[in-house]
């Protein structure tokens, strides 16, 4: 009796408190927790600030709009400094909090996501690697818990080749392309894909690595001058990008024949390079600018309420900020998909969020609803395709902003996806994993 009274008292006081705060009581109960192993200091701190700023702003935006069907989002940041050991420590620290109702984990670091692939699978926490990370995780039969969503380096490389081919009247035969890359996991991933493309399209591929961090590229560009390539495809990150652009100017290589990856195509790369960057092109899977309705609405709603995450609001609408928003959009949509199957208005557990990520179907119509038309491509994932899209746009720096040159370009899936499957099969063999049977699961 006394217990009941106590409960009544607590319930009524909670209700009173909620009324006072003008938040419906039902929403406080269900929460979805996002662990954010982010980085805002260290060599890549500037990139992390924009990306995680955008990510958190979208989460705040969803919360202000009433959460994911009433489920509020909570999150916690932990500084990784882009360092693998620190990333693992952060993951272990926040893991127990995330166990009940996790959001997909975004590390924005290839190294950290490699270190987390096995751990996240063992802990049943979904790991998202949007545009980076272990690309063979496209094969969901071997990597049920890892999602290299939207597109991968290999598909991007293939899409860039397709763009160049279209530019050259449908043929690259006899052309010479230099692949200038950050000598790390990130830069090496696309090599197999580029080699396959070079065999198929009969162009000459010259590979030139740049040692980390890449702030001295005299020798590499000397070599490029000797090779006289038609194009330079560049996989750079951080300080390497602006150094490359500046050195290209010094060596007299036209920037409008340089094409960067999506990590070599942000304002952080072009603005410091100044004049030299004019005409430089890059791939991207999300557009820049505030003219996307969603970004404008975030600025109005979140920053209007003084809850914005960015201190430097000039970063709003930059490539990396918008990429953070896109990543958050996909994460939230995955939770929505999970809720549609497992119960609306409830917090989803790891397995359910994983299901949501594997059964994403974000159509153009849905993107329009969110206000994200043109921000990112349509995404449809499945058990054997954790990538979901494989499309990029090409953009060019006009000296002040990024201008989109093309519509979405899809890489050569028939050529690239078998590479992932072969790599995943090798991984499964080394680790002794028995792959899931995707075809059988699809029938169920």
């Amino acid at each position, binding site marked *: 009796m006394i217990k009941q009274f106590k409960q009544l008292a607590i319930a009524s006081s909670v209700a009173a408190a909620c009324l006072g705060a003008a938040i419906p009581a039902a929403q406080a109960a269900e929460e979805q927790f996002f662990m954010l192993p*982010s980085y*805002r*200091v260290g060599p890549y*701190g500037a990139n992390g*600030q924009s990306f995680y700023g955008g990510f958190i702003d979208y989460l705040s935006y969803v919360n202000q709009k009433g959460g994911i069907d009433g489920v509020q989002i909570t999150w916690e*940041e*932990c*500084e990784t*400094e882009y360092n*693998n*050991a620190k990333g*693992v*420590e952060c993951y*272990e*620290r926040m*893991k*127990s909090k995330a166990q009940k109702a996790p959001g997909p984990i975004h590390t924005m670091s*290839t*190294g950290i996501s*490699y*270190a987390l*692939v*096995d*751990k996240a699978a*063992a802990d049943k926490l979904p790991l998202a690697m949007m545009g980076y990370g*272990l690309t063979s995780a496209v094969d969901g039969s071997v990597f049920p818990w890892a999602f290299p969503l939207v597109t991968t380096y290999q598909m991007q490389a293939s899409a860039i080749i397709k763009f160049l081919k279209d530019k050259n009247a449908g043929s690259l035969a006899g052309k010479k392309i230099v692949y200038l890359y950050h*000598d*790390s*996991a*990130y830069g*090496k*991933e696309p*090599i*197999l894909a580029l080699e396959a493309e070079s065999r198929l399209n009969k162009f000459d591929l010259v590979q030139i*690595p740049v*040692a*980390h961090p890449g702030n001295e590229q005299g020798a590499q560009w000397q070599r490029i001058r000797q090779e006289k390539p038609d194009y330079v495809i560049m996989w750079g990150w951080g300080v390497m990008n602006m150094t490359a652009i500046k050195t290209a100017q010094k060596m007299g290589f036209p920037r409008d024949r340089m094409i960067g990856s999506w990590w070599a195509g942000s304002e952080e790369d072009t603005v410091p390079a100044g004049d030299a960057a004019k005409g430089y092109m890059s791939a991207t899977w999300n557009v820049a600018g505030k003219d996307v309705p969603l970004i404008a609405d975030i600025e109005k709603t979140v920053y209007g309420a003084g809850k914005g995450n960015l201190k430097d609001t000039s970063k709003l609408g930059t490539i990396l900020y918008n990429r953070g928003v896109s990543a958050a959009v996909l994460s939230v949509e995955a939770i929505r998909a999970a809720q549609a199957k497992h119960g609306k208005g409830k917090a989803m557990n790891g397995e359910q969020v994983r299901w949501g990520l594997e059964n994403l179907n974000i159509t153009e119509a849905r993107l329009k609803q969110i206000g994200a038309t043109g921000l990112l491509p349509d995404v449809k994932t499945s058990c054997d395709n954790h990538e979901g899209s494989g499309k990029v746009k090409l953009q060019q720096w006009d000296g002040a902003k990024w201008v989109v040159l093309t519509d979405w370009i899809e890489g050569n899936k028939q050529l690239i996806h078998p590479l992932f499957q072969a*790599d995943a099969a090798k*991984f499964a063999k*080394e*680790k*002794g994993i028995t792959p899931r049977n995707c075809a059988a699961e699809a029938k169920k």
Partner: protein
Amino acid sequence: MIYRETGQFKTSYAADQQIFPIRQDRVGIGILLAVAFLVVPAVAGNYWFNAILIPFLIFSLAALGLNILTGYAGQLSLGSAAFMAVGAYAAYNFQVRVEGMPVLLSFVLAGLTAAGVGILFGLPSLRIKGFYLAVATLAAQFFIVWCLTKFPYLSNNSSSGVISVPGVEILGFKFDTPASRYLLVLSIVVALALLAKNMVRSSTGRAWMAVRDMDVAAEVIGIRLMRTKLLAFAVSSFYCGVAGALYAFCYLGSVEPDGFSLDLSFKILFMIIVGGVGSIMGSFLGAAFILLLPIFLDISLPALAGLLGLPFDGATVSHIQLMVFGALIMFFLIVEPHGLARLWQIGKEKLRLWPFPH
């Protein structure tokens, strides 16, 4: 009062030469090991195992390796991370390429491979000393990382150069829980630390110290310089190699050459400088200080800021953490240039007189 050897008579050479001649030390170390082996696995959570205890033990082992070379044999080295990389990649290759290779054997082989590479890069030490030798070992640091990046064979043709190690299984038992991995690492580290302690007390260790203090004098009394120096490089690299293998297999699970950068070498060097150069105990204290203090600050600073009502965000906390960490290193080095191990020793001596210092 409690820490005094009065009444403990040594009646044999064996009793006089044991590692811990004082009974209280023996009891203390026994309790410490019992806690580490029995109590910790029962009470610690996954976070403690994965993020604190396992890396602490692994880095203690690496610091121990460097301490043998730098602290005991007096050869300054900046290549410890590279030797760890050799160990990690060697263990991986033995595991993946040789069918049915026992994990422990591949750890030993990894250590031996690292020892071989260590001897190779130790050769310049026969002619040059001090800072010049440090520069020569710097070459090892860059060469090995370059080598692992350059030749795809070494990473089993992984398209990205990152290796992802298979699970650890010994005699059918899978070390897949953090607690079991902790016990495995702890056993290996304890065994190797015991070996190191005995080695530095033996004629080998005395030869190292003689070379460290004055190599000309050591040569005059009949110590073969080449053998002694190269042995120090081999043993040191063996320890670093095993630490590297454990780092890959029991801690991160996947490693890339860039992870074993010069930064890591410096970190290990700072561990022995802060912990105590020329002290086995110091390697552990130093590793604990360098590894755990940043984590402690990282966790406690936001809480402290919250308590004081200061508006700190993640980035500010990271910056403050670096500043506090740097200041603490300077503080300890000024207060006790011989490291934490020396502080510990002073503490013990004071304790012997306590509570009557006169």
